């Protein structure tokens, strides 16, 4: 099971945080800080697996991360997930984001964090992997976005988008 998915930049600022287990708000922030601390210390050419920090469950949980340009994508998983498989999943996630946002960069994630959540919701549900086919995911996300846009049009709401 995936316990949490975190995206933060090189300075530790959170860009996305999704927890699949219940933690209080304070604990969530602490986890983000602790994870950043652990991951940022890592050298470039070491392996992408780390033991989890104290807060997120200790030795049973692993942090699997990938560093792309200015962002760290960190998946905190327990022992039932395959480490190499999760690495591939991170890759698929980033490629999907790339397709959806057209050459995605950190700014896209900053200004459209809700859209990133929607894409993630099509891939991982309840801590388990839902869909890994990039095209399928993009199709679904596009259809839902279209629905939103059509509503805006029908109801003549003063705001265009959020």
């Amino acid at each position: 099971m995936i316990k949490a998915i975190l995206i933060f930049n090189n300075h530790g600022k959170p860009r996305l945080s999704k927890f699949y287990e219940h933690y209080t708000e304070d604990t969530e922030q602490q986890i983000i800080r602790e994870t950043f601390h652990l991951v940022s210390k890592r050298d470039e050419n070491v392996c992408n697996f780390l033991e989890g920090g104290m807060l997120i469950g200790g030795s049973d949980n692993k942090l699997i991360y990938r560093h792309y340009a200015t962002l760290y994508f960190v998946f905190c998983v327990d022992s039932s997930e395959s480490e190499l498989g999760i690495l591939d999943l991170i890759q698929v996630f980033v490629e999907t984001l790339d397709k959806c946002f057209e050459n995605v960069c950190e700014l896209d994630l900053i200004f459209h964090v809700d859209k990133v959540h929607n894409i993630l919701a099509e891939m991982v549900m309840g801590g388990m992997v839902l869909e890994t086919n990039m095209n399928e995911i993009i199709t679904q996300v596009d259809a839902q976005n279209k629905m939103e846009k059509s509503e805006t049009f029908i109801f003549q709401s003063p705001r265009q988008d959020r």
Partner: protein
Amino acid sequence: MPAPIRLRELIRTIRTARTQAEEREMIQKECAAIRSSFREEDNTYRCRNVAKLLYMHMLGYPAHFGQLECLKLIASQKFTDKRIGYLGAMLLLDERQDVHLLMTNCIKNDLNHSTQYVQGLALCTLGCMGSSEMCRDLAGEVEKLLKTSNSYLRKKAALCAVHVIRKVPELMEMFLPATKNLLSEKNHGVLHTSVVLLTEMCERSPDMLTHFRKLVPQLVRILKNLIMSGYSPEHDVSGISDPFLQVRILRLLRILGKSDDDSSEAMNDILAQVATNTETSKNVGNAILYETVLTIMDIKSESGLRVLAINILGRFLLNNDKNIRYVALTSLLKTVQTDHNAVQRHRSTIVDCLKDLDVSIKRRAMELSFALVNGNNIRGMMKELLYFLDSCDPDFKADCASGVFLAAEKYAPSKRWHIDTIMRVLTTAGSYVRDDSVPNLIQLITNSVEMHAYTVQRLYKALLDDISQQPLVQVASWCIGEYGDLLVSGQCEEEEPIQVTEDEVLDVLEGLLVSNLSAPVTRGYSLTAIMKLSTRFSSVNRIKKVVSIYGSSIDVELQQRAVEYNALFKKYDHMRPALLERMPIMEKTATNGPTEIVQTNGETESSALDSKHPPSITQPTNQANDLLDLLGGNDVPVIQTALPTKPASAGGELLDLLGDLSLSGIPPMTAYNKNGLKIEFTFERSNPNPNISVITIHASNSTEADMTDFVFQAAVPKTFQLQLLSPSSNIVPALNQGSVTQVIRVLNPQKQQLRMRIKLTYTLKGAPVQDLAEVNNFPPQSWQ
């Protein structure tokens, strides 16, 4: 009031903040605006406001006032509202808030909505944060959706079902009929989530496991299709067809095949096929191989397959990719217990990994290396591990040192090698060894009698080089104290003996006492060592001087020791040789044992004077009486214990040597003689107080087995007072090979005839024995 700003605006504004305080200010301002907007029940902008709230929540600011608003959004008809509402529910709400139950009805309606995306949203939210109450209410709806033909909904329903089962395990039965034809789906998404559902059900219930075993052929077929199908653009990831599904199926096969021969049989072929046909150039191929290896190791596979698996792991170890090496080391660690020989073949590669730069890999390699050490490779492995110990990070040193000690203890080829290894660890990582290793080492050294001279010489040389590592210094000073005479006499056989004079040795020990680097415990060790040397060296005056100087030390522990040693020089000089003689070989007791011994050893000399068992030391009567007098005079309470202590046995041996002397002219008597156990009483009269009789019991055993857990108890009539001191041991050796002694002091102020009732309990040949007896035949001189 003006329209609330868009999320984008908010984000832009926040990004312009230059300090944390500025950011906080902006956010507070916006929160206030949002709050007032919520109060106005503004439907049009609610969605926008909640989106902003969620963003602020991500940055770490409190957003709980938005929870109810999320619910209102969920209840709205618009898809946009619902989307944000559900997202907010997932991020802000959890089962601890009562508010979440209000969602149940909304979700129920949405699960039956005409638009699949709304249904999807509802399933997603339920699957992420549904509480057990919600799951119970909505399980029926989820089950219905599991049977629908819409693959988008079916896959979401499957994962939602997993969540429901996790929250409410009793509902698992409900989903059983729906799983019947899950595997015949063509859609990979549905297949994937169905396999997850099946995995969860099998892990939770052994009945389900047996039920689903019949699916093994179907799973094997699906896997085969995936491998053989060739290029399929929709599922391709780096040249392999849907690796995620392959990995999932392999995992389910692992669970189904565990401890079941038939299923394992059915899987053998496909596993071999996957293992040999998968491309290993990319990470995806390796992920599949890794899963295959884990599956092979877990099920009842044939040995050829197992060897194949371990060889794959060995190949992984040589891979350039760090991740692969890490994963290989982890799995080897899991399999080393069961397939020890196969893993041994890769030992050299594993040892090479010790030199890797990556911390995680080094740690795994270290653990695996310790697991691989055995009697044959101990010398080579130890060389590598010691080299590793020299150069590794401080976090590793403690674990590595303890590992080295354990391995050395189990497989040491010779005592000398063992001691050399320990010396090496102490000199390189001395400050990181664990506290309990000092007494363990001391015990080991004591027990290797022939190596004493060699050991003390090497330790002395190490001390000359470096006195900063406390465990090393402590062990060294203890050894010099014990075996200093061997050091000075230059008797070493194993290596070139060094020429050391007594003064040089005392210089070193005194240096330890004054050095700033020494911990208080170490100072205690060296003071005791100096004291012990007073019986082994001839320069007693120097030692006397040192000891008397420390009699006024600020450190209370040192002061106490020095004062007592001083007293030993002055008043009890005759006892000094006996007290300070060589320690006997210690038995290996539980981990606490040696620590006690070392401490009591340090304390024995000093506490001899207020010790709890003075009469065990048999000396000419008047001096023993002086001791008792000291005891009688001091108000040191003599504690009544029934526990044996080792130093008493050392004294006890002395007693045995001199036991036959009839000390005060009162004849000994046999108090009890039954079933092979004989108890004799010998008497002493304490001169200053004629009312006190001191009786020493000697228990001996003429049967063929030892009597263990021997406890002697005594009771006297009311006019007497009785005090029972510690026995020398509670094992009475067989065939009269030794005896247990214990001292009884009887106060008899009215000079009445001494009578006693005794109770004996012991275990002989596993059976407990208990006996009562009366002792009436005391000789008149004992109580008159």
